[in-house]
């Protein structure tokens, strides 16, 4: 019984370590890219996300299944930081305004949800998951559309974000159901989230390599 848990836990830890490595290497090339606002926002996002993931893992380790409330911080903070990232990435003024307006609307609606039902804090908030993920996917599509036939900027990262958002949100949405795929050995749905997280981190690593090589070319 212990072993499969350990496997799931070590996959999750591996993703966390990968994220940590990404944070470190992104900090290493920070000086060279200090003129790039999006780069700064990305580094802030990665660092903060690492802290949240770390907290989530520690709480989950000490008291299994009591770390659901961390997801609220994860989704909200992720949404505001990625909104900032795309805000700096978009060049058109109306897109920048759109990002701000959408964020304010999201924040108010989300607050109303918690105001209505304070128990929501102890389970997964469907609205929060669906809309923050969906909006980020929309931002990534807009960014990819804007950079068609132009020099790629944060291409791997945007691809990574959109696929991770899509897969993880479906997993988080079904989180309230406590789905278990296989009883013996015990494998629950969260393993897939960890796996997708590793894919996401590898794309971030690829993004860093791409940024590094374009720095060298300059």
């Amino acid at each position, binding site marked *: 019984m212990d072993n499969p848990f350990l496997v799931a836990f070590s996959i999750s830890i591996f993703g966390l370590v990968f994220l940590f490595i990404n944070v470190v290497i992104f900090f290493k090339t920070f000086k060279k890219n200090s003129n790039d606002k999006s780069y700064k926002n990305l580094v802030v996002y990665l660092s903060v996300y690492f802290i949240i993931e770390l907290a989530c893992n520690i709480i989950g380790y000490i008291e299994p299944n009591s770390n659901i409330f961390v997801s609220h911080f994860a989704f909200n903070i992720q949404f505001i930081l990625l909104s900032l990232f795309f805000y700096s990435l978009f060049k058109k003024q109306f897109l920048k305004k759109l990002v701000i307006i959408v964020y304010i609307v999201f924040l108010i609606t989300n607050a109303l949800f918690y105001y209505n039902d304070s128990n929501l804090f102890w389970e997964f908030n*469907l609205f929060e998951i*669906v809309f923050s*993920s*969906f909006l980020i*996917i*929309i931002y990534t*599509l807009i960014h*990819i*559309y804007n950079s*068609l*036939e132009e020099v790629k900027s944060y291409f791997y990262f945007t691809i990574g974000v959109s696929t991770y958002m*899509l897969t993880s*949100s*479906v997993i988080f*949405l*079904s989180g*309230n*159901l406590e789905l278990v795929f296989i009883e013996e050995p015990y494998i629950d749905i969260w393993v897939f989230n960890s796996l997708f997280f590793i894919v996401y981190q590898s794309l971030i690593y690829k993004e860093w390599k791409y940024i590094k090589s374009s720095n060298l070319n300059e």
Partner: protein
Amino acid sequence: MNNYDDFLLVITVIIVFLILVCVSIVIFIIKSRNKIFKKELEKKNLEIEFQNQVLQKTILAREEEQKRIAEDLHDDISSKLIATSLNLFLLKSKETKEENKEGIINNIVEINKRTIEITRKIAHDLYPPVFEKFGLIPALEELFSDYNKTNAVKIKFNSNIKFKNKASNKQLQVFRIIQELINNSIKHGKASKIDINFNAQEPFNICEYRDNGTGFNSEELENLKGLGCINIENRIKSINGNYILHSRPNKGFKIEFTFKLI
């Protein structure tokens, strides 16, 4: 029952979420396709515009050429023929004294000789007969020796390429390029020395051409848009060649172009 309701809610939310994502991806794909299509169209339009410009320049170049031939005919041959007929008129006139007639005949013979020479030269410029009979290298050598005779310019020529004797259209293009380059060197560059080398370097042949003329700044695009340059560029393209040119004010002019001959 509560669990079942929860389950339905979650499944509905997931399905709605996935539909939303799918719809946005479909919109994204359609929009992207349109954008790419638009950009392609813009590119094609630019290409067409460029081709139009080339066509315009080609027509202009032909007009220039025709004007030059007309001028040659008018200035050189017509004037000589008029001189001949004037002399003939004098010869025919009863008022002309017998002792002057000898001089007039000599005059006519002299003018005729020069007219033949000029006709030969014009024909030569238009299509060198040596080229037709013996191919590129002899034609070029003849061209250079004609220029060298004038003492205004010294042309040195080396070649290690074996051309087939039979004249081909591609060889004619090479001949024309060299002709045009020499014209430009003398007319615009006021060059007094020209070096031309043909090197066979598999898989291409390379022609290296340099003069000691006044030169120009080859990094300024405007300088490369003249009639002569466009003509040379088109001819090099027509023999599937590439070229690099380099020039600086008062530092002469250099061009290297590749060509393949069959």
